[in-house]
Protein backbone atom coordinates (compact mmCIF):
# COMPACT_ATOMS: atom_id res chain seq x y z
CA UNK A 1 0.00 0.00 0.00
CA UNK A 2 1.46 3.39 -0.95
CA UNK A 3 2.10 5.79 1.85
CA UNK A 4 -0.52 8.46 2.25
CA UNK A 5 1.27 11.83 2.16
CA UNK A 6 -1.49 13.46 4.21
CA UNK A 7 -1.39 10.90 6.97
CA UNK A 8 -0.90 12.47 10.42
CA UNK A 9 0.50 9.25 11.69
CA UNK A 10 3.72 9.86 13.66
CA UNK A 11 6.91 8.30 12.40
CA UNK A 12 7.25 6.25 15.55
CA UNK A 13 4.10 4.46 16.61
CA UNK A 14 1.45 2.07 15.49
CA UNK A 15 -1.44 2.33 13.06
CA UNK A 16 -4.85 3.45 14.33
CA UNK A 17 -6.18 -0.12 14.42
CA UNK A 18 -3.37 -1.41 16.60
CA UNK A 19 -3.65 1.62 18.83
CA UNK A 20 -7.39 1.22 19.34
CA UNK A 21 -6.96 -2.48 19.97
CA UNK A 22 -4.31 -1.86 22.62
CA UNK A 23 -6.33 0.83 24.38
CA UNK A 24 -9.46 -1.31 24.22
CA UNK A 25 -7.62 -4.28 25.67
CA UNK A 26 -6.29 -2.23 28.55
CA UNK A 27 -9.74 -0.81 29.33
CA UNK A 28 -11.37 -4.24 29.10
CA UNK A 29 -8.78 -5.68 31.45
CA UNK A 30 -9.20 -2.85 33.94
CA UNK A 31 -12.97 -3.16 33.80
CA UNK A 32 -12.95 -6.92 34.32
CA UNK A 33 -10.39 -7.08 37.09
CA UNK A 34 -10.72 -3.75 38.89
CA UNK A 35 -13.88 -1.81 38.18
CA UNK A 36 -16.28 -4.74 38.12
CA UNK A 37 -15.32 -6.17 41.53
CA UNK A 38 -15.39 -2.68 43.00
CA UNK A 39 -18.88 -2.10 41.66
CA UNK A 40 -19.92 -5.53 42.92
CA UNK A 41 -18.78 -4.62 46.44
CA UNK A 42 -20.96 -1.53 46.53
CA UNK A 43 -23.98 -3.11 44.85
CA UNK A 44 -23.90 -6.10 47.23
CA UNK A 45 -23.57 -3.75 50.19
CA UNK A 46 -26.66 -1.84 49.11
CA UNK A 47 -28.58 -4.92 47.89
CA UNK A 48 -31.10 -4.77 50.71
CA UNK A 49 -31.36 -1.02 50.91
CA UNK A 50 -29.48 1.72 52.67
CA UNK A 51 -30.94 0.83 56.08
CA UNK A 52 -29.42 -2.65 56.05
CA UNK A 53 -26.14 -1.17 54.84
CA UNK A 54 -26.08 1.29 57.72
CA UNK A 55 -27.05 -1.41 60.20
CA UNK A 56 -24.10 -3.54 59.08
CA UNK A 57 -21.75 -0.63 59.69
CA UNK A 58 -23.11 0.51 63.03
CA UNK A 59 -23.12 -2.93 64.59
CA UNK A 60 -20.94 -2.70 67.77
CA UNK A 61 -18.50 -5.36 66.46
CA UNK A 62 -18.17 -3.51 63.18
CA UNK A 63 -17.56 -0.21 64.94
CA UNK A 64 -14.92 -1.85 67.09
CA UNK A 65 -13.24 -3.30 63.99
CA UNK A 66 -13.23 0.11 62.34
CA UNK A 67 -11.75 1.68 65.44
CA UNK A 68 -9.04 -0.98 65.72
CA UNK A 69 -8.10 -0.64 62.06
CA UNK A 70 -7.75 3.12 62.40
CA UNK A 71 -5.75 2.74 65.63
CA UNK A 72 -3.38 0.22 64.08
CA UNK A 73 -2.82 2.44 61.05
CA UNK A 74 -2.29 5.45 63.31
CA UNK A 75 0.53 3.58 65.08
CA UNK A 76 2.07 1.64 62.19
CA UNK A 77 2.23 4.48 59.67
CA UNK A 78 4.14 7.01 61.85
CA UNK A 79 6.49 4.26 63.02
CA UNK A 80 7.31 3.26 59.48
CA UNK A 81 7.54 6.88 58.44
CA UNK A 82 10.32 7.46 60.95
CA UNK A 83 12.01 4.16 60.22
CA UNK A 84 11.69 4.60 56.46
CA UNK A 85 13.23 8.07 56.46
CA UNK A 86 16.04 6.99 58.78
CA UNK A 87 16.85 3.88 56.74
CA UNK A 88 16.80 5.60 53.38
CA UNK A 89 18.86 8.48 54.74
CA UNK A 90 21.46 6.03 55.97
CA UNK A 91 21.48 3.97 52.79
CA UNK A 92 21.45 6.84 50.31
CA UNK A 93 23.83 9.27 51.98
CA UNK A 94 26.41 7.11 53.75
CA UNK A 95 28.63 4.17 53.07
CA UNK A 96 28.88 1.61 55.81
CA UNK A 97 29.41 -2.08 56.38
CA UNK A 98 26.29 -4.18 56.07
CA UNK A 99 24.52 -1.69 53.81
CA UNK A 100 23.40 -4.37 51.38
CA UNK A 101 22.23 -6.50 54.27
CA UNK A 102 20.05 -3.65 55.47
CA UNK A 103 18.68 -3.23 51.97
CA UNK A 104 17.84 -6.92 51.79
CA UNK A 105 16.18 -6.81 55.22
CA UNK A 106 13.97 -3.93 54.17
CA UNK A 107 12.69 -6.05 51.30
CA UNK A 108 12.04 -9.06 53.50
CA UNK A 109 8.39 -8.24 54.29
CA UNK A 110 7.72 -8.01 50.53
CA UNK A 111 9.27 -11.36 49.77
CA UNK A 112 7.90 -13.33 52.70
CA UNK A 113 4.28 -14.44 52.69
CA UNK A 114 2.29 -12.38 55.23
CA UNK A 115 1.04 -15.58 56.86
CA UNK A 116 4.63 -16.56 57.62
CA UNK A 117 5.29 -13.13 59.08
CA UNK A 118 2.33 -13.61 61.38
CA UNK A 119 3.50 -17.07 62.35
CA UNK A 120 6.94 -15.74 63.26
CA UNK A 121 5.32 -13.45 65.82
CA UNK A 122 3.29 -16.32 67.22
CA UNK A 123 6.47 -18.39 67.52
CA UNK A 124 8.24 -15.54 69.27
CA UNK A 125 5.58 -14.15 71.55
CA UNK A 126 2.90 -16.89 71.70
CA UNK A 127 2.31 -18.91 74.84
CA UNK A 128 4.70 -21.63 73.65
CA UNK A 129 7.04 -19.18 71.93
CA UNK A 130 10.51 -18.03 72.92
CA UNK A 131 9.36 -15.06 74.98
CA UNK A 132 5.87 -16.43 75.74
CA UNK A 133 6.37 -17.71 79.30
CA UNK A 134 8.28 -14.60 80.37
CA UNK A 135 5.60 -12.31 78.92
CA UNK A 136 2.84 -14.33 80.60
CA UNK A 137 4.60 -14.08 83.95
CA UNK A 138 4.72 -10.31 83.55
CA UNK A 139 1.09 -10.07 82.51
CA UNK A 140 1.79 -8.91 78.95
CA UNK A 141 -0.23 -10.37 76.13
CA UNK A 142 0.89 -9.77 72.58
CA UNK A 143 -0.51 -12.61 70.54
CA UNK A 144 -4.31 -12.62 70.22
CA UNK A 145 -4.27 -9.04 71.44
CA UNK A 146 -3.92 -5.55 69.98
CA UNK A 147 -0.09 -5.29 70.34
CA UNK A 148 0.29 -8.37 68.11
CA UNK A 149 -1.95 -6.86 65.47
CA UNK A 150 0.07 -3.64 65.55
CA UNK A 151 3.40 -5.48 65.33
CA UNK A 152 2.30 -7.66 62.44
CA UNK A 153 1.05 -4.60 60.58
CA UNK A 154 4.25 -2.68 61.20
CA UNK A 155 6.23 -5.63 59.88
CA UNK A 156 4.20 -6.00 56.72
CA UNK A 157 4.20 -2.28 55.91
CA UNK A 158 7.91 -1.87 56.70
CA UNK A 159 9.21 -1.36 53.13
CA UNK A 160 6.73 1.12 51.69
CA UNK A 161 8.26 4.41 52.80
CA UNK A 162 11.89 3.26 52.54
CA UNK A 163 11.39 1.73 49.08
CA UNK A 164 9.87 4.95 47.83
CA UNK A 165 12.64 7.15 49.25
CA UNK A 166 15.86 5.20 48.64
CA UNK A 167 16.00 5.60 44.85
CA UNK A 168 14.93 9.23 45.13
CA UNK A 169 17.57 10.08 47.70
CA UNK A 170 20.26 8.15 45.86
CA UNK A 171 19.49 10.09 42.72
CA UNK A 172 19.61 13.42 44.53
CA UNK A 173 23.04 12.67 45.98
CA UNK A 174 24.64 14.54 48.84
CA UNK A 175 25.66 17.82 47.22
CA UNK A 176 22.70 19.78 48.60
CA UNK A 177 23.44 18.56 52.11
CA UNK A 178 27.13 19.36 51.72
CA UNK A 179 26.24 22.85 50.53
CA UNK A 180 24.05 23.37 53.60
CA UNK A 181 26.74 22.14 55.98
CA UNK A 182 29.45 24.33 54.45
CA UNK A 183 27.07 27.27 54.86
CA UNK A 184 27.01 26.51 58.58
CA UNK A 185 23.82 24.50 59.00
CA UNK A 186 23.64 21.88 61.75
CA UNK A 187 22.67 18.29 60.99
CA UNK A 188 19.08 18.86 62.07
CA UNK A 189 18.80 22.14 60.14
CA UNK A 190 20.16 20.41 57.06
CA UNK A 191 17.60 17.63 57.38
CA UNK A 192 14.68 19.94 58.07
CA UNK A 193 15.47 22.70 55.58
CA UNK A 194 17.14 20.80 52.74
CA UNK A 195 16.67 17.03 52.81
CA UNK A 196 13.03 16.89 53.88
CA UNK A 197 11.76 19.41 51.31
CA UNK A 198 13.66 17.53 48.62
CA UNK A 199 11.95 14.23 49.43
CA UNK A 200 8.52 15.42 50.55
CA UNK A 201 6.58 14.15 47.53
CA UNK A 202 8.18 10.74 47.57
CA UNK A 203 7.60 10.62 51.29
CA UNK A 204 3.93 11.44 50.84
CA UNK A 205 3.45 8.65 48.29
CA UNK A 206 5.20 6.23 50.60
CA UNK A 207 2.98 7.20 53.51
CA UNK A 208 -0.20 6.90 51.45
CA UNK A 209 0.77 3.45 50.17
CA UNK A 210 1.84 2.40 53.65
CA UNK A 211 -1.46 3.57 55.06
CA UNK A 212 -3.50 1.75 52.43
CA UNK A 213 -1.69 -1.48 53.18
CA UNK A 214 -1.85 -1.00 56.95
CA UNK A 215 -5.62 -0.76 56.81
CA UNK A 216 -6.06 -3.57 54.32
CA UNK A 217 -3.60 -6.15 55.68
CA UNK A 218 -5.20 -9.56 56.17
CA UNK A 219 -2.79 -12.49 56.25
CA UNK A 220 -0.31 -11.58 58.96
CA UNK A 221 -2.95 -9.94 61.12
CA UNK A 222 -5.24 -12.95 60.73
CA UNK A 223 -2.61 -15.25 62.26
CA UNK A 224 -1.83 -13.12 65.31
CA UNK A 225 -5.23 -11.59 66.07
CA UNK A 226 -7.20 -14.66 67.15
CA UNK A 227 -10.37 -13.18 65.61
CA UNK A 228 -11.86 -12.06 68.92
CA UNK A 229 -14.97 -10.14 68.01
CA UNK A 230 -15.10 -6.64 69.33
CA UNK A 231 -11.50 -6.90 70.51
CA UNK A 232 -8.89 -7.99 68.00
CA UNK A 233 -10.84 -7.94 64.77
CA UNK A 234 -9.70 -5.45 62.17
CA UNK A 235 -11.94 -4.54 59.27
CA UNK A 236 -10.61 -7.12 56.80
CA UNK A 237 -10.95 -9.85 59.46
CA UNK A 238 -14.44 -8.69 60.31
CA UNK A 239 -15.42 -8.88 56.65
CA UNK A 240 -14.28 -12.47 56.49
CA UNK A 241 -16.18 -13.48 59.61
CA UNK A 242 -19.39 -11.88 58.40
CA UNK A 243 -18.98 -13.49 55.02
CA UNK A 244 -18.45 -16.93 56.51
CA UNK A 245 -21.66 -16.41 58.46
CA UNK A 246 -23.53 -15.73 55.22
CA UNK A 247 -24.21 -12.16 56.40
CA UNK A 248 -23.44 -10.81 52.94
CA UNK A 249 -24.95 -7.37 53.30
CA UNK A 250 -22.99 -6.55 56.46
CA UNK A 251 -19.81 -8.11 55.04
CA UNK A 252 -20.01 -6.02 51.91
CA UNK A 253 -20.99 -2.93 53.87
CA UNK A 254 -17.74 -3.11 55.85
CA UNK A 255 -15.86 -4.06 52.68
CA UNK A 256 -17.27 -1.04 50.89
CA UNK A 257 -16.09 1.20 53.68
CA UNK A 258 -12.60 -0.32 53.35
CA UNK A 259 -12.74 0.19 49.59
CA UNK A 260 -13.86 3.76 50.16
CA UNK A 261 -10.85 4.42 52.39
CA UNK A 262 -8.61 3.13 49.61
CA UNK A 263 -10.36 5.32 47.05
CA UNK A 264 -9.99 8.37 49.28
CA UNK A 265 -6.27 7.62 49.58
CA UNK A 266 -5.95 7.42 45.80
CA UNK A 267 -7.98 10.58 45.34
CA UNK A 268 -5.80 12.42 47.87
CA UNK A 269 -2.71 11.36 45.93
CA UNK A 270 -4.24 12.46 42.60
CA UNK A 271 -5.35 15.81 44.00
CA UNK A 272 -1.93 16.50 45.50
CA UNK A 273 -0.26 15.58 42.23
CA UNK A 274 -2.55 17.90 40.32
CA UNK A 275 -2.39 20.74 42.81
CA UNK A 276 1.41 20.71 43.17
CA UNK A 277 2.40 19.56 39.68
CA UNK A 278 4.80 22.50 39.27
CA UNK A 279 6.60 21.84 42.51
CA UNK A 280 6.86 18.13 41.84
CA UNK A 281 8.33 18.80 38.42
CA UNK A 282 10.75 21.34 39.90
CA UNK A 283 11.82 18.91 42.61
CA UNK A 284 12.68 16.31 40.00
CA UNK A 285 14.87 18.68 38.05
Amino acid at each position, binding site marked *: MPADPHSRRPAVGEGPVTRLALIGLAILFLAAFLALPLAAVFSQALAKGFGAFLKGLTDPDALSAIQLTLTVAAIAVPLNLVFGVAASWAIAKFNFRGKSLLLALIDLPFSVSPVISGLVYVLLFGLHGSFGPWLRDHGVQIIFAVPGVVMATVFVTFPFVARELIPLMQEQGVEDE*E*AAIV*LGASGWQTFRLVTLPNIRWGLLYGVLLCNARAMGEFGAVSVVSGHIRGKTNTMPLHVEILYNEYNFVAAFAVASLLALLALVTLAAKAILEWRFADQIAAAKR
Partner: protein
Amino acid sequence: MAIEIRNVEKTFGAFTALGGVSLDVRSGELLALLGPSGSGKTTLLRIIAGLDHADAGEVSFDGQDTRDRAARDRKVGFVFQHYALFRHMTVFDNVAFGLRVKKKAERPAEMDIRRRVGQLLEMVQLSHLASRYPSQLSGGQRQRVALARALAIEPKVLLLDEPFGALDAKVRKDLRKWLRHLHDDMHITSIFVTHDQEEALELADRVVVMNHGQIIQVGTPAEVYDTPADSFVFDFLGGVNRLNGVIEGGVARLDGKAVRVDGEVGPNGPAVIYVRPHQVELDVAPGDGVPEGKWSARVSSLHAAGPVARLELDLAGRALEAQLSRDRLSDLALDVGSWCTVDFRHARVFPAKN
Protein backbone atom coordinates in the same frame (compact mmCIF):
# COMPACT_ATOMS: atom_id res chain seq x y z
CA MET B 1 43.73 34.02 54.93
CA ALA B 2 46.78 31.90 54.20
CA ILE B 3 46.39 28.14 53.94
CA GLU B 4 49.18 25.66 54.59
CA ILE B 5 48.83 22.13 53.36
CA ARG B 6 51.39 19.64 54.67
CA ASN B 7 51.86 16.08 53.39
CA VAL B 8 48.17 15.46 52.89
CA GLU B 9 47.33 11.90 51.91
CA LYS B 10 43.99 10.43 50.91
CA THR B 11 43.04 7.06 49.49
CA PHE B 12 39.67 5.72 48.40
CA GLY B 13 39.95 1.95 48.66
CA ALA B 14 42.89 1.01 46.44
CA PHE B 15 42.91 4.37 44.66
CA THR B 16 45.39 6.98 45.85
CA ALA B 17 43.68 10.32 45.39
CA LEU B 18 46.41 12.33 47.10
CA GLY B 19 49.88 10.98 47.78
CA GLY B 20 51.51 13.42 50.19
CA VAL B 21 50.69 16.88 48.91
CA SER B 22 52.16 20.08 50.35
CA LEU B 23 51.17 23.56 49.24
CA ASP B 24 51.15 27.11 50.56
CA VAL B 25 48.25 29.25 49.51
CA ARG B 26 49.02 32.94 49.98
CA SER B 27 46.53 35.26 51.53
CA GLY B 28 44.34 36.99 48.96
CA GLU B 29 45.57 35.14 45.89
CA LEU B 30 43.52 33.43 43.23
CA LEU B 31 44.94 29.96 42.82
CA ALA B 32 44.08 27.37 40.18
CA LEU B 33 44.33 23.63 40.78
CA LEU B 34 44.83 22.30 37.29
CA GLY B 35 44.95 18.67 36.25
CA PRO B 36 43.20 15.85 34.40
CA SER B 37 40.33 13.99 36.05
CA GLY B 38 41.54 11.69 38.78
CA SER B 39 44.53 13.90 39.53
CA GLY B 40 43.24 14.62 43.05
CA LYS B 41 42.47 18.32 42.61
CA THR B 42 38.84 18.09 43.71
CA THR B 43 39.76 15.85 46.63
CA LEU B 44 42.26 18.46 47.79
CA LEU B 45 39.60 21.17 47.54
CA ARG B 46 37.12 19.07 49.54
CA ILE B 47 39.71 18.39 52.22
CA ILE B 48 40.35 22.13 52.58
CA ALA B 49 36.59 22.67 52.94
CA GLY B 50 36.30 19.87 55.49
CA LEU B 51 33.95 17.83 53.29
CA ASP B 52 36.52 15.02 53.19
CA HIS B 53 39.07 14.06 55.79
CA ALA B 54 42.72 13.55 55.01
CA ASP B 55 44.14 10.14 55.98
CA ALA B 56 47.35 11.85 56.99
CA GLY B 57 48.92 15.29 56.96
CA GLU B 58 47.46 18.58 57.99
CA VAL B 59 45.73 21.66 56.67
CA SER B 60 46.02 24.88 58.62
CA PHE B 61 44.28 28.21 58.21
CA ASP B 62 46.55 31.12 59.22
CA GLY B 63 48.70 28.70 61.21
CA GLN B 64 45.81 27.04 63.03
CA ASP B 65 45.29 23.34 62.45
CA THR B 66 41.82 22.64 61.08
CA ARG B 67 41.62 18.98 62.05
CA ASP B 68 39.09 19.55 64.81
CA ARG B 69 37.05 22.07 62.91
CA ALA B 70 34.00 20.62 61.21
CA ALA B 71 33.03 21.85 57.76
CA ARG B 72 30.22 23.96 59.21
CA ASP B 73 32.62 25.87 61.47
CA ARG B 74 35.31 26.58 58.89
CA LYS B 75 33.68 29.67 57.34
CA VAL B 76 34.53 28.47 53.90
CA GLY B 77 32.62 29.50 50.80
CA PHE B 78 32.18 26.54 48.48
CA VAL B 79 30.75 26.67 44.99
CA PHE B 80 29.82 23.22 43.75
CA GLN B 81 30.33 22.06 40.22
CA HIS B 82 26.59 21.65 39.68
CA TYR B 83 25.85 24.56 42.03
CA ALA B 84 23.77 22.48 44.48
CA LEU B 85 21.20 25.24 44.77
CA PHE B 86 18.26 24.40 47.01
CA ARG B 87 15.61 23.78 44.40
CA HIS B 88 12.62 24.41 46.66
CA MET B 89 13.88 27.86 47.69
CA THR B 90 13.82 31.09 45.75
CA VAL B 91 17.04 32.78 44.73
CA PHE B 92 16.64 35.11 47.68
CA ASP B 93 16.15 32.30 50.19
CA ASN B 94 19.10 30.40 48.74
CA VAL B 95 21.40 33.37 49.31
CA ALA B 96 19.92 34.02 52.76
CA PHE B 97 20.36 30.40 53.86
CA GLY B 98 23.80 30.76 55.39
CA LEU B 99 22.66 33.76 57.45
CA ARG B 100 19.41 32.20 58.61
CA VAL B 101 20.96 29.00 59.92
CA LYS B 102 23.35 30.87 62.21
CA LYS B 103 22.94 30.34 65.92
CA LYS B 104 20.47 32.78 67.48
CA ALA B 105 23.19 34.82 69.17
CA GLU B 106 25.05 35.38 65.88
CA ARG B 107 22.10 35.59 63.53
CA PRO B 108 21.51 39.04 62.03
CA ALA B 109 18.04 40.54 62.31
CA GLU B 110 15.73 39.69 59.42
CA MET B 111 16.02 43.27 58.19
CA ASP B 112 19.81 43.06 58.06
CA ILE B 113 19.57 39.71 56.29
CA ARG B 114 17.33 41.30 53.65
CA ARG B 115 19.75 44.17 53.18
CA ARG B 116 22.78 41.90 52.93
CA VAL B 117 21.12 39.52 50.48
CA GLY B 118 19.96 42.52 48.46
CA GLN B 119 23.56 43.76 48.23
CA LEU B 120 24.85 40.36 47.20
CA LEU B 121 22.21 39.94 44.50
CA GLU B 122 23.05 43.38 43.21
CA MET B 123 26.71 42.44 43.10
CA VAL B 124 25.99 39.33 41.02
CA GLN B 125 23.50 41.33 38.93
CA LEU B 126 20.51 39.18 39.78
CA SER B 127 18.34 41.53 41.86
CA HIS B 128 15.51 41.22 39.36
CA LEU B 129 15.38 37.43 39.76
CA ALA B 130 15.23 37.29 43.56
CA SER B 131 11.86 35.55 43.68
CA ARG B 132 12.60 32.99 40.95
CA TYR B 133 13.36 29.33 41.61
CA PRO B 134 16.66 27.81 40.48
CA SER B 135 14.94 25.72 37.79
CA GLN B 136 13.82 28.96 36.14
CA LEU B 137 17.38 30.26 35.73
CA SER B 138 20.03 29.75 33.07
CA GLY B 139 23.30 28.02 33.89
CA GLY B 140 25.26 31.25 34.21
CA GLN B 141 22.62 32.74 36.50
CA ARG B 142 22.62 29.64 38.71
CA GLN B 143 26.38 29.89 38.92
CA ARG B 144 26.13 33.46 40.15
CA VAL B 145 23.46 32.57 42.69
CA ALA B 146 25.75 29.83 44.01
CA LEU B 147 28.55 32.37 44.30
CA ALA B 148 26.37 34.93 46.10
CA ARG B 149 25.18 32.21 48.49
CA ALA B 150 28.76 31.22 49.25
CA LEU B 151 29.79 34.84 49.83
CA ALA B 152 26.85 35.58 52.13
CA ILE B 153 28.60 34.06 55.14
CA GLU B 154 31.62 36.33 54.54
CA PRO B 155 34.01 33.44 54.09
CA LYS B 156 37.73 33.75 54.67
CA VAL B 157 38.39 31.52 51.70
CA LEU B 158 36.40 30.82 48.58
CA LEU B 159 36.61 27.37 46.99
CA LEU B 160 35.21 26.71 43.53
CA ASP B 161 34.92 23.23 42.02
CA GLU B 162 35.03 23.38 38.22
CA PRO B 163 33.17 26.69 38.38
CA PHE B 164 32.66 27.05 34.65
CA GLY B 165 32.54 23.39 33.68
CA ALA B 166 28.84 23.20 32.98
CA LEU B 167 28.55 26.42 30.96
CA ASP B 168 28.77 27.07 27.26
CA ALA B 169 31.84 28.79 25.83
CA LYS B 170 30.53 32.34 25.56
CA VAL B 171 29.04 32.48 29.07
CA ARG B 172 32.18 30.85 30.40
CA LYS B 173 34.42 33.60 29.05
CA ASP B 174 32.21 36.40 30.39
CA LEU B 175 31.89 34.80 33.79
CA ARG B 176 35.64 34.22 33.96
CA LYS B 177 36.35 37.91 33.46
CA TRP B 178 33.64 38.81 35.92
CA LEU B 179 35.05 36.47 38.57
CA ARG B 180 38.51 37.96 38.11
CA HIS B 181 37.13 41.47 38.70
CA LEU B 182 35.17 40.26 41.70
CA HIS B 183 38.29 38.73 43.18
CA ASP B 184 40.27 41.92 42.59
CA ASP B 185 37.58 43.86 44.45
CA MET B 186 37.18 41.51 47.39
CA HIS B 187 40.63 39.95 47.82
CA ILE B 188 39.31 36.75 49.33
CA THR B 189 41.81 33.91 49.15
CA SER B 190 40.28 31.83 46.37
CA ILE B 191 41.07 28.39 45.01
CA PHE B 192 39.39 26.97 41.95
CA VAL B 193 39.65 23.56 40.39
CA THR B 194 39.73 23.17 36.64
CA HIS B 195 40.85 20.80 33.92
CA ASP B 196 40.88 23.62 31.38
CA GLN B 197 44.44 24.94 31.02
CA GLU B 198 43.30 28.07 29.21
CA GLU B 199 41.00 28.92 32.10
CA ALA B 200 43.74 28.37 34.68
CA LEU B 201 46.34 30.38 32.80
CA GLU B 202 44.02 33.28 32.08
CA LEU B 203 42.33 33.61 35.45
CA ALA B 204 44.74 32.59 38.20
CA ASP B 205 47.54 34.42 39.99
CA ARG B 206 49.28 31.09 40.39
CA VAL B 207 48.67 27.69 38.89
CA VAL B 208 49.16 24.34 40.63
CA VAL B 209 49.50 21.52 38.11
CA MET B 210 48.52 18.13 39.51
CA ASN B 211 48.68 14.58 38.23
CA HIS B 212 48.13 11.19 39.87
CA GLY B 213 47.65 12.70 43.32
CA GLN B 214 50.87 14.71 43.18
CA ILE B 215 51.67 18.36 42.65
CA ILE B 216 53.91 18.53 39.59
CA GLN B 217 54.50 22.26 39.40
CA VAL B 218 53.47 25.49 41.10
CA GLY B 219 54.02 28.85 39.48
CA THR B 220 52.58 31.90 37.82
CA PRO B 221 50.80 31.24 34.54
CA ALA B 222 53.84 32.59 32.67
CA GLU B 223 56.25 30.36 34.60
CA VAL B 224 54.18 27.28 34.08
CA TYR B 225 53.65 28.01 30.43
CA ASP B 226 57.20 29.03 29.61
CA THR B 227 59.13 26.57 31.75
CA PRO B 228 57.03 23.45 32.27
CA ALA B 229 58.57 21.16 34.86
CA ASP B 230 58.22 18.00 32.82
CA SER B 231 56.73 16.45 29.75
CA PHE B 232 53.37 15.95 31.47
CA VAL B 233 52.96 19.67 32.11
CA PHE B 234 54.02 20.39 28.54
CA ASP B 235 51.47 17.93 27.20
CA PHE B 236 48.74 19.03 29.54
CA LEU B 237 49.08 22.74 28.88
CA GLY B 238 48.78 21.86 25.23
CA GLY B 239 49.54 23.95 22.17
CA VAL B 240 52.91 22.27 21.68
CA ASN B 241 54.69 20.35 18.93
CA ARG B 242 56.10 16.96 19.90
CA LEU B 243 58.91 15.84 17.63
CA ASN B 244 60.54 12.45 17.97
CA GLY B 245 64.30 12.70 18.08
CA VAL B 246 67.23 11.23 20.00
CA ILE B 247 69.67 12.24 22.68
CA GLU B 248 73.28 11.40 21.90
CA GLY B 249 76.11 12.38 24.19
CA GLY B 250 74.21 15.20 25.85
CA VAL B 251 72.92 16.66 22.61
CA ALA B 252 69.36 16.48 21.36
CA ARG B 253 69.17 15.66 17.69
CA LEU B 254 66.39 15.84 15.15
CA ASP B 255 67.21 14.08 11.89
CA GLY B 256 70.86 14.11 12.90
CA LYS B 257 71.00 17.86 13.41
CA ALA B 258 71.57 19.30 16.87
CA VAL B 259 68.67 21.13 18.50
CA ARG B 260 69.45 23.89 20.95
CA VAL B 261 67.41 23.11 24.06
CA ASP B 262 66.77 24.84 27.39
CA GLY B 263 67.38 22.97 30.62
CA GLU B 264 68.60 19.45 31.13
CA VAL B 265 69.10 17.10 28.26
CA GLY B 266 68.97 13.70 29.93
CA PRO B 267 70.46 10.30 29.15
CA ASN B 268 71.12 8.87 25.70
CA GLY B 269 68.22 7.30 23.87
CA PRO B 270 65.00 8.12 22.10
CA ALA B 271 63.61 11.51 23.12
CA VAL B 272 60.76 13.87 22.46
CA ILE B 273 61.52 17.46 21.57
CA TYR B 274 58.84 19.97 22.63
CA VAL B 275 58.48 23.23 20.75
CA ARG B 276 55.69 25.76 21.08
CA PRO B 277 54.29 26.95 17.74
CA HIS B 278 55.37 30.55 18.31
CA GLN B 279 58.94 29.42 18.99
CA VAL B 280 59.23 27.95 15.52
CA GLU B 281 61.19 30.28 13.30
CA LEU B 282 60.60 30.20 9.57
CA ASP B 283 62.72 31.62 6.81
CA VAL B 284 62.70 31.72 3.05
CA ALA B 285 64.27 28.59 1.59
CA PRO B 286 67.54 29.43 -0.22
CA GLY B 287 67.93 28.05 -3.69
CA ASP B 288 70.81 25.72 -2.83
CA GLY B 289 69.89 23.13 -0.18
CA VAL B 290 69.27 23.51 3.53
CA PRO B 291 71.45 25.90 5.58
CA GLU B 292 73.73 24.44 8.21
CA GLY B 293 71.94 23.37 11.41
CA LYS B 294 68.45 24.10 10.10
CA TRP B 295 65.60 21.99 8.77
CA SER B 296 63.56 22.16 5.68
CA ALA B 297 59.75 21.92 5.63
CA ARG B 298 56.85 22.31 3.26
CA VAL B 299 53.73 24.32 4.06
CA SER B 300 50.76 21.93 4.05
CA SER B 301 48.07 24.34 5.18
CA LEU B 302 47.69 27.94 6.25
CA HIS B 303 45.13 29.72 8.46
CA ALA B 304 45.51 33.47 8.27
CA ALA B 305 42.43 34.81 10.06
CA GLY B 306 43.12 37.34 12.83
CA PRO B 307 46.44 38.94 13.76
CA VAL B 308 48.33 35.67 13.97
CA ALA B 309 48.86 33.21 11.14
CA ARG B 310 48.93 29.47 11.86
CA LEU B 311 50.82 27.20 9.52
CA GLU B 312 50.83 23.46 9.31
CA LEU B 313 54.18 22.26 8.06
CA ASP B 314 55.48 18.93 6.90
CA LEU B 315 58.95 18.40 8.36
CA ALA B 316 60.27 15.16 6.87
CA GLY B 317 56.96 13.42 7.46
CA ARG B 318 56.23 15.04 10.85
CA ALA B 319 53.43 17.51 11.35
CA LEU B 320 54.71 20.79 12.77
CA GLU B 321 52.60 23.76 13.74
CA ALA B 322 54.03 27.27 13.57
CA GLN B 323 52.67 30.68 14.50
CA LEU B 324 53.86 33.98 13.19
CA SER B 325 52.54 37.47 12.69
CA ARG B 326 50.65 38.30 9.52
CA ASP B 327 53.34 40.84 8.63
CA ARG B 328 56.08 38.26 8.89
CA LEU B 329 54.03 35.89 6.78
CA SER B 330 53.67 38.41 3.98
CA ASP B 331 57.43 39.18 4.19
CA LEU B 332 58.15 35.52 3.69
CA ALA B 333 55.53 35.22 0.95
CA LEU B 334 54.74 31.66 1.97
CA ASP B 335 51.85 29.75 0.51
CA VAL B 336 50.55 26.21 0.61
CA GLY B 337 53.10 23.96 -1.07
CA SER B 338 56.07 26.31 -0.71
CA TRP B 339 59.27 25.28 1.05
CA CYS B 340 60.93 27.09 3.91
CA THR B 341 63.70 26.59 6.43
CA VAL B 342 62.83 25.88 10.04
CA ASP B 343 64.66 26.67 13.27
CA PHE B 344 63.62 26.57 16.91
CA ARG B 345 64.12 29.56 19.18
CA HIS B 346 63.32 27.64 22.36
CA ALA B 347 62.84 23.95 22.75
CA ARG B 348 62.87 21.36 25.52
CA VAL B 349 63.75 17.73 25.37
CA PHE B 350 62.54 14.85 27.55
CA PRO B 351 63.38 11.15 27.28
CA ALA B 352 60.67 9.32 25.33
CA LYS B 353 58.31 7.14 27.38
CA ASN B 354 57.80 3.66 26.04
